[in-house]
């Protein structure tokens, strides 16, 4: 049963029967019956997605120069934040959901007030597109990585508009950036993953030999996940840099696509250019699920911080994939059969 409306502004309802049969390991993904498709950024596709820290909201940013805040459970658009001059490339929310930061092709990073939707601060300084942006744990620093090969650390506490520090070790554009309690992980187009350890005062550089598209920390903080343009996702040991797992099968050749780990570090998920989300078992490295999202490139994905929910972005649609608790053994069997 498909109820589709032509107006892109309205919520499209879709039947979930086709997706519910897909399951992975313990849990199964399916589209929400209520709002599995969220309203789009008009025609242009959303470029990046992220859950808020508590997972109740999701943030999509797109090429219509705006950010949109959604409620995950109700599927409603809560607020639109516009102020960027070009497409918004990445966004992040603070731990207390009071602030947002976003970066754009207009070389700026903007700090937003969530409630009012006003621009709190517009930070200029990058020499090129700003690819990625992240708050630190306490939202005192905004870190932004740009195509100019620098990561800039902006102070949200002071009124200074200059960055605290510029990390210019990357020899090419910084494509991805993640912050943990005391570490900063950056992936660069020069094929290196850099981990700045603030506590130790050290910089660890891991050579991957292929432009990095996305980097992630594992939830336990012991590993890093790296996806690169050689269509490989690698799980590296954080302390030694040794490879613990390699996940292949998807297609990632030209787009800057995301990868992520499931909330309990059981699975590795990655976008693919063939319109699927690939899901591997972390330990065994075997492909557990190939989630068909659409026909176009799956541009971004994000995993819910606590529940088994997945966000995907494709061609102006944001989809929330949820997992049903394992109902019966029979169904799973059916699924296996259907797959077969």
């Amino acid at each position, binding site marked *: 049963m498909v109820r589709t409306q032509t107006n892109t502004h309205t919520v499209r309802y879709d039947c979930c029967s086709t997706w519910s049969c897909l399951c992975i390991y313990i849990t199964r993904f399916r589209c929400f019956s209520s709002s599995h498709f969220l309203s789009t950024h008009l025609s242009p596709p959303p470029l990046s997605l992220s859950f808020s820290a508590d997972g109740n909201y999701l943030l999509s940013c797109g090429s219509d120069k705006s950010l949109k805040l959604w409620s995950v459970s109700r599927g409603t658009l809560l607020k639109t934040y516009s102020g960027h001059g070009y497409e918004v490339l990445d966004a992040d929310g603070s731990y207390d959901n009071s602030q947002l930061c976003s970066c754009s092709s207009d070389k700026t990073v903007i700090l937003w007030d969530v409630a009012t939707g006003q621009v709190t601060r517009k930070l200029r300084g990058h020499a090129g597109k700003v690819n990625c942006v992240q708050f630190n744990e306490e939202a005192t620093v905004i870190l932004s990585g740009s195509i100019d090969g620098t990561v800039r650390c902006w102070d949200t506490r002071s009124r200074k508009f200059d960055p605290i520090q510029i*990390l210019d*070790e990357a020899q090419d554009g910084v494509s991805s950036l993640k912050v943990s309690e005391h570490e900063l992980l950056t992936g660069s187009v020069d094929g290196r993953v850099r981990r700045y350890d603030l506590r130790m005062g*050290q910089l660890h*550089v891991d050579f991957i*030999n292929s432009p990095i598209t996305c980097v992630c920390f594992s939830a336990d903080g012991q590993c890093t996940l790296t996806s690169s343009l050689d269509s490989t996702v690698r799980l590296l040991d954080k302390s030694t840099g040794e490879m613990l797992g390699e996940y292949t099968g998807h297609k990632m050749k030209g787009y800057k696509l995301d990868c992520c780990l499931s909330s309990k570090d059981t699975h590795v998920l990655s976008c693919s250019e063939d319109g699927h989300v690939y899901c591997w078992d972390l330990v065994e490295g075997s492909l557990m699920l190939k989630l068909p999202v659409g026909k176009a490139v799956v541009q971004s994905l994000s995993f819910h911080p606590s529940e088994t929910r997945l966000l995907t972005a494709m061609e102006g649609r944001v989809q929330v994939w949820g997992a049903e608790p394992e109902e019966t053994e029979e169904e799973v069997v059916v699924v296996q059969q259907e797959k077969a």
Partner: protein
Amino acid sequence: STWFWSTEIRDVVRYYEPLRKPVPLYEQTVKDEKGRYQRFHGAFTGGFSAGYFNTVGTKEGWTPATFVSSRQQKAGRQNARPEDFMDEEDLGDHGIAPRQITTTADFASGRKDVIRDKARAITSLSAPIPGDTVLEDLVAPARSSMGVELLRKMGWKDGQGVGPRVKRRLCKQRADSATRAFGSASPPNGSSESQDEEDGEFVPENVTFAPKDVTPIDFTPKVDLHGLGYRGLNPLAALRGGPGAGHINLFTMDSDRTNSLFGEDRKGQRRRGGVAGQGFGVGAMEDDDEDIYHRDIMSNYDTVLGGEEPGNGLYGWTAPQQYNRKKKDAAYLGKILEGFTLASDKLETKTIFPPPNLPRDFRPVHYFRPVVDLSSVSPMVAQALQTSRGHMAQEEPSKGGRHQLDSAQRRELLGEATLQGADCSLYSSETCRHNKMSLLNPSRFAPHAEQQQQEALSVWSGPTAQAQTGQTFKPFERTPHKQARYDLYIDQLKQGDRDALELSLDPTMTEWERGRERDEFVRAALLYKPSSSSLSCRFTRGKQDDGVEADTVEVTRDQENDVDDKQAAVKMKMFGKLTRDTFEWHPDNLLCKRFNIPDPYPGSGFVGMPKVKRDKFSVFNFLTVSESPTASASPAPQGNKQSVPLYPDTFYLKCYREEFQSVGALTFIVYYQIYSLFNLITRLN
């Protein structure tokens, strides 16, 4: 009754003078102690402006004592002192708290804190109960100065004197205590001994006593015009009117004596009568008997001129002490002023020290300044002679040896005037030029030198050179004369003068020197010819002068390992040691603060990767240094627990690397695999 004007006549005369014109309001100015105009303002323009517009602020705003608290430095308690609320006027010489160097209370002996006393007096006045601080004084903690503490540590006890223990009789000490009022000096030996014999007490031998206490000498300087030993009337004693202070005796010496003699007896005595009279004002509750008003007795006053009666007014009282004292004073006629004692021994004659012995190597040579007729020598020499101290002039080290000097410099050093030879001034400029051209020996010039000269002319007279305004290159900067000549040469070249070189050279120089300079100038002009205008207009000069460091560039100290090795390692999927580089990296202090992390390198002066200066065009900048970057110079911070290497013996690894670097990366990796296999086997064993 008759009244007298107490004013001087001058003033009286002035009284009849016409009144002076009042100073107009705009001329009524007030200056502070530094001569700055003070502004009246406030209600009825009566008040001064204090502080900054009568506020506690400053021009920069009101800045409170900044709160400083960090993990390392906790905020301390801040106690406000009275001085914090005073301005410089208060702290000035005539303020309420003049600044002077004082010893702190711990080290002071007896002197009181003036400021504190004043403050206390003020608070006692303003306190709800006047004189409230009396209680405070009573319960003041027992404090002794540092000197007393030290003395106690050394065995001193209160009441004793300071010094080595003295072997003497007990009774002597007792006798001395009686003379306490008189001073500290021990009496002449003979008299005391005779007295001791009289006492006839048994005194054990080998017993030493502490020396007796010395009354401190008052060192306050005498600033008044009274005679020595004069003490004015004590108003407190005069007005107290108590029985203890019966009569104010002008002759203090005597009163002391009488007091000491009468001792206790006098206290009990009640004197009545005389010039007495009960004044008004005795309260109903007060005891009528109380002698609240001072009464004086006429018998206290001398009625007859002509000094004291014998016995010092004791009227026949003949105590043995009196005689004792007389005996002591016998050597000296006249009164001994209070605070003074008779000297026990003679004044020491001043010793005159012989002049010091001359050292052996002392040479009594004196340089006499030559008597020179100053008009006959050049002013330079005259000045040098006047200022000379007989030393040779030190050659400035920066100027190089004397061989580097040119004739002009030599001339300057010697103080000679410029030679008045066949100079241009004698001829007109045109004839001069010809003259000089004829003087020059053209045969000295090689044909290619002429050619170079022409080339320089063509280069510098072009439009690009004209466009260049300021000449930046100064090749002969060390010798200003030469540089000036060179500048002149360049200027002439720009104007297209063919004889630029000859004109710019110094005609007083020797032929050889000129020839050398000619070559140098042409070479320099050709070497630093102006760049073409189209190019030069696109570049601007660097704001900061590069100077010596022009050829260096900052590069990161730690370089990455060989990329080829890594690529090979990635192909072999051997991630880990081979693909990882660890560098020292300094986060910004503020960044650490924001991340709630202590700075790993506190006090390091830079952020980011440590940088070193290398030659800009060095080959090594383009070669990757294959040193292990982990061996960084600065020590790794503590707590590095997590990076436990899988292969602990990196030494072998290094050896392997060095050995097989020439063989090639791939071969090395094969060897590395063998090595790790080997390692595994040894581990299993």
